[in-house]
C-alpha cells in the first residue's frame, strides 16, 4: 500500500493519546489501591488527560485529511454493524468525550469518593469514568487494528498481531509520554511509568518483530495466475491499459526502492523500540526530563516510520494487475 500521511498521523497520534490515557488511568488505579502515592488531581490527571486529548484531537484532525468529503464525515457513523471503520468513527469521539470528562472532573475535582473498602481503597467517580475510558480505549485500539486486520487478502495485516501491535505500540508511546510528563509534574511516579513503558516497549518489540517474521514468511495466496486465471509459470504483464498512472498505481504501492524499505524497517526498530528503551533507562536513572522527552520524541518518530512501513509492506493483490505501464 502507499502510506497516506493522514492515516499515519491519525493512528500514531491517537495511539499516543490512548496510551497516555491508559497510563493516567493505571496510575490512578494504582493509587486508588494505594500502590502509588496519590496525586494532585488537577495537575497530574487533569493536565495529563488534556494532553492525551490533544493527541486524540490531533489524530482526528489528521483523519479528516484522508477524507475526500470531510463535511459528510458524520455519515461514517452509520454502519457500525459491519464496518470497523464506522465503529472506529463512533468509538473515537466517545473515548475523547470520556477523556475530556475525566480531565474535567479531575480539574474541577468532581471526584466524590463513592466508596471506600475496608482496606482503604477508594472508589472515586473519576475511576468509574476512567474505567469506561479504558474500555473504550481498548475498543478503539481494536477498531483501529481491525480496520486493517479484517482485510483478509492484505495478508500482512490479516493477523491478530495487527491489533496487538496497535495496542502495544500505542500504549507504549503513551506511557513514554506519561513518563516524561510525570517527571515534570509528579516525579515520584516517574519510575513507575518508566518501568511500565520499558515493559510495554519490550512487549511491543516482541510482537512487532513477530509480525515482521510472520510477514516475511507469507506466501501470497493470490498470484498472477489466479489473478487472470491462466496456468503458466511464465506470465508477464505488458500493459495495464493506461500510461499516465491511476488511483490503482498511486494508492496501492509505495514506489519506494527495496533499500529504502529496508532502511525504514531498521530505523523503526531502532527508533520506536531500542533507542527509547535506552533513553528511558538513562532518563529514569538521571531523572532527566530532557532525556525522557527525547525518548518520547524519538519513539514517536520511530512509530511514524513503523506506520509507514506497516502500510508499505502490505502487498495488495490488486497490484498484480498493475505491474507494467
Amino acid at each position, binding site marked *: *500500500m502507499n502510506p497516506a500521511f493522514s492515516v499515519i498521523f491519525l493512528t500514531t497520534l491517537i495511539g499516543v493519546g490512548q496510551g497516555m490515557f491508559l497510563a493516567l488511568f493505571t496510575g490512578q488505579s494504582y493509587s486508588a489501591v494505594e500502590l502509588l502515592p496519590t496525586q494532585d488531581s488537577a495537575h497530574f490527571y487533569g493536565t495529563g488527560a488534556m494532553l492525551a486529548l490533544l493527541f486524540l484531537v490531533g489524530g482526528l484532525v489528521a483523519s479528516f485529511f*484522508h*477524507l*475526500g*468529503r*470531510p463535511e*459528510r*464525515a458524520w*455519515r*461514517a*457513523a*452509520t*454502519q457500525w454493524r*459491519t*464496518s*470497523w*471503520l*464506522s465503529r472506529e*468513527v463512533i468509538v473515537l469521539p466517545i473515548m475523547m468525550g470520556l477523556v475530556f470528562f475525566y480531565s474535567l472532573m479531575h480539574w474541577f475535582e468532581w471526584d466524590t469518593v463513592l466508596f471506600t473498602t475496608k482496606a482503604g481503597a477508594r472508589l472515586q467517580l473519576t475511576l468509574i469514568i476512567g474505567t469506561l475510558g479504558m474500555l473504550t480505549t481498548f475498543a478503539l485500539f481494536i477498531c483501529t487494528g481491525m*480496520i486493517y486486520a*479484517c*482485510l*483478509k*487478502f*492484505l495478508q500482512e495485516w490479516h493477523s491478530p498481531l495487527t491489533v496487538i501491535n496497535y495496542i502495544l505500540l500505542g500504549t507504549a508511546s503513551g506511557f513514554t509520554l506519561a513518563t516524561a510528563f510525570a517527571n515534570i509534574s509528579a516525579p515520584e511516579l516517574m519510575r513507575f511509568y518508566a518501568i511500565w513503558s520499558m515493559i510495554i516497549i519490550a512487549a511491543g518489540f516482541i510482537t512487532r518483530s513477530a509480525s515482521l517474521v510472520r510477514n516475511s514468511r507469507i506466501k501470497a*495466496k*493470490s498470484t*498472477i495466475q*489466479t*489473478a*487472470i*486465471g*491462466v496456468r*503458466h509459470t*511464465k*506470465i*508477464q*504483464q*505488458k*500493459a*495495464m*491499459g*493506461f500510461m*499516465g*498512472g*491511476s*488511483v*490503482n498505481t498511486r*494508492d*496501492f504501492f509505495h514506489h519506494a526502492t527495496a533499500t529504502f524499505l529496508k532502511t525504514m524497517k531498521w530505523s523503526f526498530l531502532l527508533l520506536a523500540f531500542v533507542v527509547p528503551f535506552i533513553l528511558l533507562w538513562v532518563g529514569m536513572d538521571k531523572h532527566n526530563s530532557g532525556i525522557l522527552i527525547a525518548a518520547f520524541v524519538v519513539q514517536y518518530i520511530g512509530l511514524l516510520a513503523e506506520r509507514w512501513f506497516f502500510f508499505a509492506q502490505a502487498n*495488495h*493483490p*490488486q*497490484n498484480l*494487475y*498493475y505491474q507494467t505501464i
Partner: protein
Amino acid sequence: MTQLALVIDLNVCVGCHACVTSCKEWNTSGPAGFMTDENPYAKDPTGTFFNRVQTYEIGEFPNTETLHFPKSCLHCEDPPCVPVCPTGASYKRKEDGIVLVDYDKCIGCRYCSWACPYGVREIDEQQQVMKKCTLCVDRLYDETLPESERKPACVLACPTSARLYGDVHDPESEVSVAIREEGGYPLMPEWGTMPSNHYLPRRKTRMHIHEDELQRADNPLNKEQRGPSAPVKTPTLDDSTSW
C-alpha cells in the same frame, strides 16, 4: 434471485479498448458521472475509468500467447467492499446484485477500494467520491431505450462480442450457459468473494492431417502427365512381337 453480470470471452477479445471508452462516454454524462480527467492535455494524463484493458504475455518465444484482459467491477456475490464502507455508500442491490456507490453518501475514505482485491474502484480525484462500474444500471431498466439496447454500453460496443451480459443465477441465460460450457472461471477464487463476472478461457482449433490425404486418387497431378503425342519413331514392341 437475480445476479446480473458480465462474462468476458478472452478467446475473442482483441484488446481494442472499445469497451473502455464507450463506458467512459456513456457514464461520464449520466447518473454515474462525471468521470474526471486530470492533466487532460499535459504530462501524465490520468482519469477515472470504470473499465480497463490490460495485456499479458504468457510463455516464451516462439510459444508466446498474448492475452488481452479487460477488467471492471466483478459485482461479487459476497463483495468485501460493501460491509467495510462506514457510510453505507457502497451497497449491493437486492433486486439484481449490482454493487453500487451512492455518491451522495460517500465520504471518499477509499476504504472500500482497499477492500477490493481486484483493483477496480477508482476514487474521482476531483469530486472525491468513489466510483466504479455500475453495470450501466441506468441503461438496464430505461424503458425509453429499445429492449435490445438495455444492456451495458461496453457490451453494445464490443466489436468481437467478447462481453456477454445477463443473469448468472438463471441457469438458462446466455451467460450461465457460456460459463458452464466454455469453462468460465472467476478471478482470485481464493478469497471467496464469488465474483459474478466470469472469464472464458482461450480455446484452440487444431487441424490433424492424415498421411493419405496427401496422396489421393483425385490428385490433379495425375492428369498433368503428358503422353507422347506423335507416333514414336524408334522401334517399339510392336515392331518385334505379335500376340
